[in-house]
Structures are given as structure tokens and as C-alpha cells.
């Protein structure tokens, strides 16, 4: 009776998850599916458009989406913890405006401005996190308020766009990391890659990262398991604020300007990238690598449309939707058929 009960490793999908995927509940991160679709889409692009499969096109994907990458990493943590952060785009804009105004109009040193705006981002995140944690307010509303506030402050500081001519910024903006073969990466892309790497490490290998997953899975259980739900949650928003500010800095390198209308609608794109990357909006499941793939997929869709070059404005929108649909459907199909295979083996 007392012998070890040998239990077969499970070969079937979790019961009750097949065919009812739409019911909120744990599901497998469709990471591999995302990658498959990314590859398939690139191949399709290469077949359709000459010059599409050149290395620089793919590096441009990174260069052009560097800000999004950085912001989406922060957003991933927020969503993994079961929250949402709508303030990221506005915070990016605020960062660029503050940086530009301080550097250009007040002549501050960039080395002072950059830490300052990062601190500003963290502070902003902590402020929202505290409101959410201490007063039990829904993250959606708090961060929406944060979005109004950040965007509004940016307007108040400067309605006009401010060009940055400061030499350090210009030097960083022009700096390229040569990768051989005539292709190169911008500073922003390098920062984005580092952020993704750091995010992956943070999510996978630190107690904080795992606590974020635990809270997203079941807040009550995490609390009873003795995790510091409150402090983790505040830190998650602080992290997102930090990433937004970092994204803002990357954007100043990318555009060499500060403008209150920068990064309009970025919050939604970031959320979409995170969710497309396989993270559950309800929290607890997903990965930073998935988010990275999600950003690349959104960027690739954009690139495909640019390469086509024949779409009118409204067909562009429809094509965006259709590609998004095709991608998401493909992803679901792959996930499902893998589940099916699993139960066969």
C-alpha cells in the first residue's frame, strides 16, 4: 500500500481545455506557433516582393520597432500580473518632450537628463501602482487617467515639437553597430535587444518574475502562499514606467525630437504585440520572448504593407486587419493541431 504511486506523465491535454479555448483558463503559450507564423509570413513576403528577404529589411524591423520592443517588455510584466497599462504611449511622449525641452531649451547635459527621465518614468509607474494597490482601483481606469495625465503634461510643457540638435544625442542617433555585409543596427535596436534579454532573465530566473506569474495566475493563492502581492504589483507598474521612459529615450534617438503627439496609440499596439506573442490578457501565462516575436510580427505586417505600395489608405487598414486575422487564425490552428497530436502520441 505504501509503495510509491507511479503516475504516468500526462499525455492528454488538460481536461476541459479542448474545444473550449475561449473559456478563460490556463492554456499553453503558443510561442512556437508564433515563430512558425513569423517565418511563414517572411517567406510569403519574399515570394511576393523582390528585395524583401534582404538582411537589412529584417534589421530595419528591429530598428523601426525598437521603441515598441522596449515598451512591450514592460507591458508584458503588467499583463502577466493580470493588470494593464494604458499610459505607456503617453509616457513615451512625455519623456521625449521633457528630454528635448531640458536639453534644447535649458541646455542640460544628456547624462543628467536621461537618468532623470528614467526616474520620472519609475515614479509615474509607482504612483499608478500605489493607486491600484492601496485603493483597490481597477488598473484600466488608473492607467487611463495616467495616460491623460502624461499626455496632458506633455502638451503643457510644449505643444510644438522640439528638434534635438544636441551633439551627444545626434552622435547616438547616428551610431551604428556594423554587423558585416553592409548591414547594421542602431543604438535603439541594441537597447531593445538588451531590454528583451533582461526581461527574459527577469521573468524566468528571478523571484520577482515568478511572483508576477503567480499573481497573474491566482492573486488569492499567491497571497496565501506568502508572496508579497502588494509590493510586487507596485514594482510591476514601476517597471512598466521605466520601460516607457527607456522607450522614450530610444525614441529621441530615433527621431531626434520631442513631441507631445509622439507614440499615439502605442499602448494598444504594445498590448496587441504582447497578446499576439501568446500572453493571456487575464495574466499568468506568456513569455517575454513571445512578446518579442509579437512585436516582430506586427512590424512585419507593417513592412509587408509598405512593400506592397499599391494599397489605398482604406485598403491599407483592411489589409492590416486581414493579415492580423490570418495570423491569429493560423496561430490558433497550429496550437490546436499540436494539442491534437499530443493526445495521439
Amino acid at each position, binding site marked *: 500500500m505504501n509503495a510509491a504511486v507511479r503516475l504516468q506523465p500526462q499525455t492528454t491535454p488538460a481536461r476541459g481545455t479542448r474545444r473550449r479555448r475561449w473559456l478563460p483558463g490556463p492554456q499553453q503559450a503558443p510561442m512556437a506557433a508564433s515563430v512558425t507564423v513569423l517565418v511563414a509570413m517572411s517567406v510569403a513576403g519574399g515570394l511576393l516582393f523582390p*528585395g524583401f528577404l534582404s538582411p*537589412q529589411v529584417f534589421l530595419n524591423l528591429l530598428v523601426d520597432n525598437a521603441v515598441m520592443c522596449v515598451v512591450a517588455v514592460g507591458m508584458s510584466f503588467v499583463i502577466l500580473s493580470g493588470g494593464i497599462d494604458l499610459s505607456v504611449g503617453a509616457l513615451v511622449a512625455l519623456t521625449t518632450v521633457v528630454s528635448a525641452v531640458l536639453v534644447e531649451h535649458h541646455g542640460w547635459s544628456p547624462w543628467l537628463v536621461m537618468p532623470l527621465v528614467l526616474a520620472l518614468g519609475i515614479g509615474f509607474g509607482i504612483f499608478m501602482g500605489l493607486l491600484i494597490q492601496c485603493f483597490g482601483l481597477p488598473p484600466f481606469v488608473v492607467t487611463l487617467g495616467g495616460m491623460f495625465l502624461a499626455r496632458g503634461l506633455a502638451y503643457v510643457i510644449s505643444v510644438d*515639437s522640439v*528638434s534635438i540638435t544636441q551633439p551627444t544625442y545626434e552622435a547616438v542617433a*547616428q551610431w551604428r553597430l556594423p554587423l558585416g555585409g553592409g548591414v547594421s543596427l542602431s543604438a535603439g535596436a541594441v537597447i531593445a535587444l538588451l531590454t528583451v534579454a533582461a526581461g527574459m532573465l527577469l521573468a524566468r530566473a528571478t523571484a520577482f518574475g515568478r511572483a508576477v506569474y503567480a499573481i497573474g495566475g491566482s492573486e488569492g493563492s499567491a497571497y496565501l502562499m506568502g508572496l508579497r502581492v502588494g509590493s510586487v504589483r507596485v514594482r510591476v507598474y514601476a517597471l512598466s514606467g521605466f520601460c516607457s521612459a527607456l522607450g522614450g529615450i530610444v525614441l529621441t534617438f530615433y*527621431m531626434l525630437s520631442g513631441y507631445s*503627439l509622439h507614440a499615439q496609440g502605442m499602448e494598444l499596439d504594445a498590448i496587441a504585440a504582447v497578446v499576439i506573442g501568446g500572453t493571456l490578457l487575464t495574466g499568468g501565462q506568456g513569455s517575454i520572448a513571445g512578446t518579442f516575436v509579437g512585436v516582430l510580427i506586427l512590424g512585419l505586417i507593417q513592412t509587408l504593407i509598405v512593400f506592397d*505600395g499599391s494599397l489605398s489608405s482604406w485598403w*491599407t*487598414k483592411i489589409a492590416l486587419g486581414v493579415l492580423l486575422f490570418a495570423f491569429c487564425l493560423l496561430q490558433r490552428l497550429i496550437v490546436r493541431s499540436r494539442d491534437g497530436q499530443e493526445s495521439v502520441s
Partner: protein
Amino acid sequence: GCSGRGGHDGRTVLGFSQVGAESEWRTANTASIKSAAHDAGIDLRFSDAQQKQANQISAIRSFIAQRVDVIAFSPVVESGWEPVLREAKAAHIPVVLTDRAVDVSDPSLYVTLIGSDFVEEGRKAARWLLQNTPAGDGPVDIVELEGTVGSAPAIDRKKGFHEALAGHPRYQVIRSQSGDFTRAGGKEVMEAFLKAEGKRINVVFAHNDDMAIGAIQAIEEAGLRPGRDIKVISMDGVKGAFEAMMAGKLNVTVECNPLLGPQLMQAVAAIKAGKPLPRRIVVEESVYPMESAAAAFPTRKY
């Protein structure tokens, strides 16, 4: 031109990055460019940025990657173009700006700018008002319906308008609020103004026709007569504005011409032929007061 590039059939390739399709004006602008390219036999690579600068930049990048002959674009914003224009310059691709200017430190980054001067448009509106107000010394109270906060036309038109009115203390802008360039926005803001200021308002200055049309509806619903009780001044000169003027509800519209296509194609051809171009190609624009509306209406294309 260099031999290595160009379209498959040797035609000139023009990469054009449009802001979006946020207004009728913009739609007319796009249509003009497309048809002019077609007529001029130019291979047009068109990309719509959905009102996002980031999309425009990545479109320009991909034009560079595709090695088009000329790049043209209507900048969403004035600043932020320096890095990508430098890349274009490094790739020896000439750049033409349409509609709006950009703010760059190196003037060689673009060849020419074809477009209107928003500040001047604002001034024109103010001048018309100065000329067409009955003499007297009673105050003229103006409310201003601004465009999207931070957008270049909103900033510049406001600037020009206020600049031209500066020496005339009789003219006071008593309220100013953003109507986001839309009819619904214009109407809603105007409703609030009417309730807050009542019959005090003499003039409405709207940064575009759509907001003016919205404001006209609000004025009518308040039981006042737009065009008479309250003068309405607007900008752009789209068809709707002419209809309103013919109905006697809008006093004047300052044209902002979106039909830049032919001029753009001429410029592209000139660049390909190596001819010099002026730094600034101004578009013909006039002021259409109410009285001239009926005559001009049949010729309007947008």
C-alpha cells in the same frame, strides 16, 4: 539618375508616404497625387501611415531599401525626420516634401517643398475679418475652434490669425478650444461656447471646414443664424464649405489646395532630368468669400 535602380520597365519610381486619410482634404490630396503619377507615367509606390510618424519613417526606410528614384512625403509632424533623411541622403535618393515643412538642421536633406503656408492662411483669414467688419468701435468677440492639439496646421493657423489681429484691440479671441478637426468636435465645442458666452459671440474662426460645418449646426440649433448673427470663417475650401456658403451660412473659407499632384510630378521629372528646382514651390490658393461661392462651386474638384 543611376542605372541600377528604377522600376522593372525603366519608369521612374516615386515612393510616396501619405499621412493617412483623416479628412476629405487628405483624400483629395491622395487622389490628386495618384492620378498625376498615372498621367505622368511615373511608377508610384504609395504608403499610408495611418497618421503615425513611426509608420512614415519605416515606410521611408523601406523605400530606401527598395532603392526608389525619388522619395516624397507629407510629414505628419515637423520634427523627427533628421536621422531618416540622412539615410536617404547617404543612399543618394532625393527627397521632396509636400504640404508641410520639416525642421532639419541640414537644408540639403531635401530638395524642395511643395505646399501651403499655414501661417499665411491664418493671416489671410484675419485680414478678411479686418476688412469685412463694419466700422465702429464695439468689440468683436471671436471664438476659435482649434484643430488637434499639437498638430502643425492648428499651431500655425492660430499663430497667423493671432499675429494679424495683434494690433487691433477691438478684436478679442474670447474662447479657444480644440474640436479635433471633426464636425462632431466642432459642433460639441460650439454648443458649449454658445451656452457659456450666449449672444456675445460675433465671429467663429474654425481651423478647418469640417469644424465650421459642425459649428454652423450648433448655431442653428441655438436659434441663431450662422453667417448673419455670428460670422463663420473657416479654412481649406472643401465642397461642404461651398455648399454652406451658398446657403448663406458660412462667410468665408481660405483655400488650402490639396491638388499638388501635377506640381509634384513636374518636380520629380525635373529632378530626374537634373534640372535645378526652387527650394519652395508655392501652391496657388485664394480666399473664397460667400459671394463668390456659387460661381466657384462648379469648378471645385474636392
